């Protein structure tokens, strides 16, 4: 790798370093009351201690599991429903307008319905992530499947492929980049949703980063509150990095500009 490229790549750290430095200066200068914020150096030490003790990984694990189950359930339902609507014009005519209507509803509005169906337990939290994922994946997948070139389907007809072979060999691979892009967005949004529902439904003895942060705030442990937030950000970054790798793998055949940049860097 050239020196220039190494310098450019290292530059990605510039903005976070500047932000952290600014934050440290502001807190040390007493510009923010100690009850509202803690210096990054203090937060980092507390974060390390909470990670070593296993407390943050335990809460993070609960949040991560809810997120993954929710994204998988919502994602699979989104792909399956879009495939069905692409295959059946009648179903598309009957169902698509309703899905479009429901998709416009803010995700928080689903809370009373999901509480009614699932209570406030695990199912509720997973369902909240699933519903936000479902709409995102459904629409991206629907558009991508609709856009599969007729030429490729004709080719499959010439080789006498069954419907499932067409799904496996033509429809899904063709739509995979769009589906994975939607899943990546859903995952990022899913962290917001999972934090919100854990935070909002926090009770003594709950598990999850949302509850951990809510609890820390309630008892005035500012360092722990910020440690939890930082740990959440790190987990969100890691899941995004992972899905980006998966996306790159499944779109390695594509020569789109976005993919070339992802492969070759700047």
């Amino acid at each position, binding site marked *: 790798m050239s020196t220039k490229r190494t310098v450019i790549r290292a530059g990605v750290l510039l903005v976070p370093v500047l932000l952290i430095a600014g934050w440290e200066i502001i807190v040390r200068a007493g510009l923010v009351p100690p009850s509202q914020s803690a210096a990054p150096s203090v937060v980092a030490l507390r974060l390390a201690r909470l990670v070593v003790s296993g407390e943050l990984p335990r809460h993070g694990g609960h949040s991560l599991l809810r997120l993954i189950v929710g994204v998988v359930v919502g994602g699979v339902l989104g792909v399956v429903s879009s495939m069905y609507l692409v295959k059946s014009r009648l179903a598309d005519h009957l169902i698509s307008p309703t899905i479009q209507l429901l998709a416009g509803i803010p995700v928080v509005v689903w809370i009373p319905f999901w509480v009614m169906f699932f209570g406030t337990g695990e199912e509720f939290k997973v369902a909240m992530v699933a519903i936000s994922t479902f709409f995102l994946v459904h629409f991206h997948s629907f558009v991508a499947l609709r856009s599969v070139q007729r030429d490729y389907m004709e080719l499959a007809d*010439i080789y006498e492929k069954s419907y499932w072979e067409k799904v496996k060999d033509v429809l899904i691979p063709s739509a995979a980049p769009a589906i994975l892009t939607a899943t990546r967005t859903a995952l990022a949004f899913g962290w917001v949703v999972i934090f919100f529902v854990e935070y909002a439904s926090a009770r003594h003895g709950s598990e999850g980063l949302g509850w951990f942060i809510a609890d820390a705030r309630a008892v005035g442990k500012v360092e722990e509150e910020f440690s939890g937030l930082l740990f959440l950000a790190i987990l969100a970054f890691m899941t995004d990095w992972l899905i980006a790798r998966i996306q790159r793998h499944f779109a390695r*055949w594509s020569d789109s500009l976005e993919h070339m940049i992802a492969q070759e860097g700047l």
Partner: protein
Amino acid sequence: MGSPLTVRVSSMKYPDSTDQRNLIEDLSFEVPADGIVSLLGRSGAGKTTLLRMIAGLERRFQGEVSLNGGQISRPSRDIQIVFQDYRLLPWKTVYENIEFATNKADSEHNKTQIDRWIEIVGLQHRKNAWPKNLSGGEEGRVAFARAFVDQPRLLLLDEPFRGLDLATKFDLQDQLLNALRNQSTTVVMVSHSVEDAVFMSDSVFLLSESPMRIVNQFKIDMPRPRQRGDQQLSALTAKITEYLATQQRA
């Protein structure tokens, strides 16, 4: 073994259009088993539509297309088509694109056949490459291997050499003719190039446009392998070109 092809189209309207004129009218020809026939005509005359009709991909026409006496009513493995743009699946490698054309039932036999065809078209070193990384000539070779791997009875070629440089075109033509020596298949090729049509075919049909009909036919009774630049071939190429020029002037 190739099969005899019979095409009898009384009429076909312009597809996807409000134009009520016929695109094709009273067009009939036969191709004997293992024969190679070229259709020469101008762009937009309806040649690709005619190939699609023969392939069973286009059914909105009056008439009948039959292979070995059986009417063609839908696409099938017996009839392979090499499209103008080669139509490789971009998410499959060279090997997987060829594999896509095989019947999954006999995977061991298929593997042998795929490897054999990859070797015939000289792409052993590119078998794991993505289509985006292939040159035009390499894409064409994959398309030929894919068309041959399942041993079709009829092969349709839609301007398969368009846009290729001369060396690549000659290489592909030689590979195609070699392949046809090893595996007998009836071939119908659509082309713009008189030279390509004369070099490759047993018969050349000249087509009119609006509506498309056969206006003349030239037989080429010459053994293969043929030599490019052969006097007899050159004379025939000149004769057909002159005929087309006269038609154009008229």
